[in-house]
């Protein structure tokens, strides 16, 4: 059986998490949503979502291939073991984050204050 404490704990965590959504979104807003910022160990590259392009970023354990096509950006190839970044799929101008942790590479599309919930769950 669940105790009253269990239910209160679940409720408190849920409320804090829901309240944190707008706070975190506000903290990271102010970026241009037509651009993707690719950050790797070697530095940052800004990609315009309107211009189809493929770049190779040097990661911690190999290369990460980031592709912009039809207004979306995605990691098409990575040398990491789990490929979470590749499976994360594409980001469009609604914003979001794709991270390849083993390679230390992140792809961020800005204006995170504007995006909906379904844009985060990518």
């Amino acid at each position, binding site marked *: 059986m669940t105790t009253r404490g269990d239910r209160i704990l*679940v409720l408190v965590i849920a409320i804090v998490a*829901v309240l944190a959504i707008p706070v*975190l979104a506000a903290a*990271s807003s102010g970026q241009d949503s037509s651009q993707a910022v690719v950050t790797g160990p070697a530095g940052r590259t800004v990609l315009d979502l309107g211009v189809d392009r493929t770049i190779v970023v040097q990661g911690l354990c190999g290369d990460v291939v980031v592709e912009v096509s039809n207004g979306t950006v995605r990691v098409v190839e990575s040398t990491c073991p*789990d490929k979470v970044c590749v499976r994360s799929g594409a980001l469009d101008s609604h914003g979001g984050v794709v991270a390849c942790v083993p390679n230390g590479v992140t792809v961020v599309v800005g204006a995170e204050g504007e995006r909906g919930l379904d844009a985060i*769950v990518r």
Partner: protein
Amino acid sequence: MRSSAEASLHLGANTSDGARSVALGAMLLVCAVALGLVESWLLVWSPVPWLRIGLANVAVLVALACIGPRSALAVSLLRVMLVGVATGTLFGPGTVLAVSGAVCALVAMLLVRAAGARFSIIGWSVAGASAHVLGQFLAAALVTGSAAIVSLVPVSVLASLFLGIATGLIARPVISRVMPAV
């Protein structure tokens, strides 16, 4: 598995009980590794690639409830190390994330456990799951140097509530059967 022996000695158990704890701890470690592997296969179909079910935490919960904190810590950390050795990613950024998540989860579960009967195993599990998400994302933000990752935390924590309840529900019948054997 020395730590599980220490845990039972600490509790003043006799040698036979100590041996039982070591055996149970070792078994739970194997379960944790196996569950972690099964989960990594399930991960392929997950719509949210970075989200883990936390099945391995069932073994940690059982260790915590039936043996004690030291055993739970041993099961949790040795699992991370064994999976790291098996996949060849030991001491890489993935291990940093896993250790951070595992330690945060265990600390949270110990805090909830310290509150006694106010929380059931479901409460432990939920606290552990949420703390695991937090620990993992904070480590990910540090490793990648990108604070933007933190924006994924709220949704992941909400998902972890359901997953925490689920793993707690799995752990409960296991604990009620294993407990009399310890």
